[in-house]
């Protein structure tokens, strides 16, 4: 005797949050049942393993049906296939409203079926350890094939890895061709809360420029470090950043700006300017730090490093190495000199400001725009 078919369909869709999480984590039905049995749900509800299996399979099917919709969240708002329990909805609405503090940007979230909304967040949520592995990689079939290695390395099930990867890819594909601010686009098309949308923006941005993040020297950086830097880059270095969101997209760096960065080379090629700059900085720093000597000794070296990075950014290939360059050319030398992050902050502040006092240096706007991002990125990345 065997069960050939077994379905349960409610007028309002019942979703078990615990099982949903198991599904997202890529557990097979059998594994999920085991986890649930260990969780003690059987004793609680006088159920047998058979019942639990049937329930889990049923839930998994519901999620799979739901998944199709989750891929196009905008449709969720007026989809007819699932109905959400009204009372539960009332509770969820209120909780969400509280959480959102009536933030008008999050209205989208409250307005439609909150219940599915939660599924949505969870569906689009990702593991930092996973994203760290694929950050900056091309979101291609090739990368997807390598996911089993990632899965082994991170201990996240392959299924879950695939889902997360596909999410990245889906968002990337949609956003790629859209105009306007990146984060806003993601939020509107995928109805994600602010923070999650920002993270996705970072992922898309990294994937687009194929930033190198996998090198050993970069291993100490977390996804959140990169996401922060990506935010800086998106907000300051893209076309959208200056053009007030007209026409162009956020995904690409401002070519003109990159071109202009070459002009900064004068800071290291002109010997006078370099010395003058050094003097100004040293004067400002003197007495304010314990590591003044090291700073003074290293000034030319560090300055060369930063300006060279700027000058090279016009080549797409060098953009990829942006972070590794920052680490090699600036962070590592500073660290070997035992600079604290306060020291680095002090140094970079004066380094940036002093350039404006230089007589022959004309590229103030570009300099500010460049150094603003560099400074905040370095400060964020300057940790163990």
């Amino acid at each position, binding site marked *: *005797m065997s069960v*050939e078919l077994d*379905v*349960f369909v409610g007028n*309002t869709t019942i979703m078990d949050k615990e099982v949903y999480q198991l599904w997202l984590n890529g557990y097979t039905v059998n594994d999920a049942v085991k986890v649930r049995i260990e969780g003690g749900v059987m004793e609680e509800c006088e159920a047998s393993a058979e019942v639990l299996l049937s329930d889990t*399979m049923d839930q998994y099917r519901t999620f799979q049906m739901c998944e199709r919709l989750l891929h196009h969240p905008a449709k969720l708002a007026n989809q007819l*296939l699932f109905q959400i329990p009204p009372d539960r909805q009332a509770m969820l609405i209120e909780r969400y409203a509280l959480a959102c503090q009536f933030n008008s940007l999050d209205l989208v979230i*409250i307005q*439609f079926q909150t219940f599915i909304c939660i599924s949505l967040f969870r569906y689009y949520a990702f593991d930092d350890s996973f994203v760290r592995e694929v950050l900056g990689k091309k979101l291609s079939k090739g990368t997807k094939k390598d996911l089993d290695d990632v899965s082994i390395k991170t201990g996240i099930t392959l299924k879950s890895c695939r889902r997360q990867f596909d999410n990245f890819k889906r968002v990337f594909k949609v956003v790629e061709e859209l105009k306007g601010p990146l984060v806003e686009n993601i939020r509107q098309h995928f109805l994600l809360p602010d923070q999650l949308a920002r993270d996705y923006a970072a992922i898309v941005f990294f994937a687009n420029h194929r930033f190198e993040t996998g090198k050993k020297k970069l291993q100490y950086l977390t996804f959140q470090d990169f996401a922060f830097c990506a935010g800086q880059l998106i907000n300051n270095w893209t076309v959208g950043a200056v053009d007030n969101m007209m026409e162009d997209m956020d995904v690409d760096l401002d070519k003109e700006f990159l071109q202009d960065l070459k002009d900064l080379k004068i800071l290291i090629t002109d010997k006078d300017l370099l010395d003058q700059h050094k003097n100004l900085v040293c004067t400002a720093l003197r007495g304010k730090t314990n590591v003044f000597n090291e700073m003074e000794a290293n000034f030319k070296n560090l300055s060369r490093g930063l300006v060279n990075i700027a000058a090279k950014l016009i080549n797409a290939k060098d953009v990829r190495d942006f972070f590794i360059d920052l680490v090699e050319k600036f962070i590592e030398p500073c660290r070997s000199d035992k600079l604290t992050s306060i020291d680095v902050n002090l140094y970079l502040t004066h380094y940036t400001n002093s350039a404006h006092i230089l007589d022959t240096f004309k590229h103030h706007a570009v300099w500010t725009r460049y150094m603003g991002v560099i400074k905040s990125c370095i400060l964020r990345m300057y940790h163990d």
Partner: protein
Amino acid sequence: MPGKLKAKIVAGRHLPVMDRASDLTDAFVEVKFGNTTFKTDVYPKSLNPQWNSEWFKFEVDDEDLQDEPLQITVLDHDTYSANDAIGKVYIDIDPLLCSEAATVISGWLPIYDTIHGIRGEINVLVKVDLFNDLNRFRQSSCGVKFFCTTSIPRCYRAVMVHGFVEELVVNEDPEYQWIDRIRTPRASNEARQRLIFLMSGELQRKIGLKVLEMGGNAVVGYLQCFDLEGESGLVVRAIGTACTLEKISTFPATATHPNNSSPSKDMKDSPQAAPSTLGCRSTHSSPVHSASSRLSQGFSVSVPTLLFAGMKPRHRSSEVPRARQCRPGFGEEAPGVPLSSGPPTPLRAQTFSSFSPSKSYSRQSSSSDTELSLTPKTGMGSGGSAGKEAGPLKALLRQQTQSALEQREYPFFTLTAFPPGFLLHVGGVVSARSVKLLDRIHNPALGNTRSYKLLDWNSFTADEPETRDAWWEEIRQEIKSHAKALGCHAVVGYSESTSICEEVCILSASGTAAVLSSRFMQDGPLDTEHRLSRQPLCVFSTGSERVEGDMGSSASLGFEEVVSPGCGFCHIPYDELNIPFPAQLTYCYCCRRYKVPDVLFTTIDLPTEANVTGKGCLIQARLCRTKKKAQGEGNATAISSLLPFLEYELHTQLMNKLKLRGMNALFGLRIQISVGETMLLGLASATGVYLTALPSPGGIQIAGKTPSDITYEQHISTMQKKINDTIDKNKELYEINPPEVVEEIIGSPIPEPRQRSRLFRSHSESSDEVSELDLSHGKKDAFVLEIDDTDAVEDIHALLTDSPTPAGFYSCNTEIMPGIQNWTSAIQMFTSVRVFRLNANLTNQGLNKIFSDLCENLLKSLYFKLRSMVPCCLCHLNFTVAIPEDELIQVAVTAVAMSFDKEQPLENGKQSGEKTLIKAITENDEQLQFNLELNAETSSHNPLSSPKGLSEVGSHLSARAPSVDYSSFADRCSSWIEQLKLKAHTIRRGSVKTTSSLEKASPLPEGRSRSLRSNRSYSGSSVAVVKMTPLSFIPGAKIIKYLGIINMFFIRETSSLREEGGVSGFLHTFIAEVFAMVRAHVAALGGNAVVSYSMKECVFMENPNKNQAQCLINVSGDAVIFVRESELESTSVQTQSATTHTSNGGEGT
């Protein structure tokens, strides 16, 4: 052309990608009604087309309006090749034809394709302009209201109950037509869907005609079924109860008469609304009548069910009246009979006065009936037995009602719940079955030329409906004669069903024999002398007076005579000395005046006024019998010889399980027999209760046949102990206390009459006790189970293996559970389907066990699924079994889980106080609706004042929300969200991708949602929540309008079964889609709920080897608008503010 149908195609959304190159679709729409087709322009390159078409107008006969659905086809335009169909929408416009139902269909409807399922949605507007047609020869019956609900619908009251209406139509099944070999599966499915739509429309129209003929204006308890007979065709048949209904005046008035309309209130407030009734005796005299037109030997068996062990089924040659009666013909059946006297009922019966002429007409026609039919004579014959009844008054009463009833061919009623005072006595279950051989198609060659789109069976299958009619007629006659044998003149809770396997078909009918008051059947008041003489017996005269007040004008006082509510219906209707089956009679435990049987079985719902001790529970008897494979007549004979035994065993099982639970009555009994090639399946479900009026059931005693063996003795005594323990446990579980402690009954909400009845009883007990000792109940008459063979041992094991429901759960298959009243508004309707594959070569016992486990496990799964709703009751648990193919058993369950508050119902005063409180709050809210901060404050005030605050939930706002009045809370939330939304509209620039959730959370009057919808239809509007329930009511809410019947038929087929998640994935999606379509159609009618929902057909076929599967689903129900009771009072305020709101909202968008 008395009707103009207008349709407008507004927009589409979420269309599938039809053009791979561009990832877009060039969609246009064809709108078809009858033979007329209109097209919209092509809206190029969009998945969300905005057609915004002109109004397409169809000028048609109202006959066509009733028969035909409006067919909307969405296509993808293709310049070079044929246009591809995206999908279709069938819209039943019947609800628009009745003035009291919906006025417009407007909303987003899913576009459905039989191969791909739902593919996007389309927004349409449909209206109908009807012109009055006073032509008495007309074939249409617009204006007759149809209800699936098997009681008088909530916002109506019955002026007259006319009686049974039935009709059937037959056609060739397109699936079996010659052309099916060359057309695509899609074309074939669509042909079938369309045909069934047409046939249901026609069937409804014909039934409507019969109703008008009888002088009624509505059909209640409308039950429509399909018989997919395969080669021999497709039968669509329907039965119902014709009534004259009167709408109870709207809101303000209803608020003052809540008794009439709200079921829960009925229970709470007016238990005295009593049908005075007599006697009861559960007999299940289930005759199995088998005679096919080809089988010459027919027989009829009556299985007396209340037998003690060891009794054998008695065969008795029944007095089946073979005489076929000439029925007055209707319509096409007998065109010769002139309909000259057709009632000039106006098309839209707006005034009730217009019914009086038709009423008088109905009498006229029934008298002509009498002339035509032989019924009166047969009536006389059995009248003799009625005459023998004890008490001349009873006889008088009977004669009167009888005369009213016997003018009808079949005194049957599909109702299961009755207006107070209608049901007098219940006799017991009567049922009849008949095994028939389906005829093969006569002339397949004809199929080639025939177009299947019209129902022109007259041409060659002309005799088909005749044959089927004759079959059913036989069975109904049988039922009628059984009812007579029980001393009853009517059958209530009547239903018919079939089970088909290859060419064998089992027709079944069952109902409850009963004696009814003629009040709703005759016009004039009845004999007063008779009433007076009965009056002294009336214990609760106050109660009945109140009822009369409610019942209004037509209420003749004639039948308020008899005794107490809550026990009257149990009193036996038959002659004590002439019992049609072995039974033990005792004096009623409530009134001590009349005789009652020891057990009572019925197919109806528990009358709301019945006195019940404790709670009830679902009781199921399950049985499997193997059968040899056979063909044709041999097969039919084999089946007919098996049936009586099957029925008998089911009955014994039911009886045992009933005793085991310490209960004495079954309600809602439904026995389903399913036939397969190698087995017969029987499933009997019912709700067991302890009727206070009936004697306490004896225990179960086990007797071994060989007392010599000591171990055997021991074995028996352990079993006996087990059984006794189980009985005790069950008594505790269901709160069944012996009648002496009757004060603690939870089921009887009003203390006063109860106390009185107790006093009355104790008084009578003291006086009668001695004389009644011989009729005593106690353990003396314990039910004896003899273990004389393995079968009996199996039986006992089966008895004990039924696992109890987990804590916090109750289950029943009736509308309500006795003893539970304080329902919350949380309901969850669900459908669950399981298919089991059996191993070959199982014994009967093995099969039984498997089948029983299957059902048990299914129940267990349900309890687990719904654990979040505890404490809750699964109501209307409706099991359907089928044998889709050899070695497969399919069980489908549809039910509703309703949670309730564990606490005892509050006192009335307290409740009303609370209500006003809520009302005040709601009003507050309404006023403050545009002020965010203030509003938040109000919501924080509310819960503190709520007396019912139960569970403290995590978040601080929700902690303040009382668990009970979600309804009002949800509403508040929604209004508050609406505000946010308004703000959002002003704040946010750019596209609004998602819109409000307000409509779904707020069960507001239609005006509001309507206007909202129409305002928004262009900018992707929100989805309204539509509740679905198999019950006739929604707890905590009041139905304010019935919008019409929902009757939908869908076919889904796939040839990529694995890709769709296997059979389970396929069916899961399909059922979810069916729900979605039902909800969408109800919402389009302006409704927010479906009541009396049922899934009447779920035929699933698979062929895993070919990766194919097909499924047919037929669902029905009544679309309604409901309002939460808590809001009822403040509705006017709400509507006002709603209008302001809407206009604001409109500006915002």
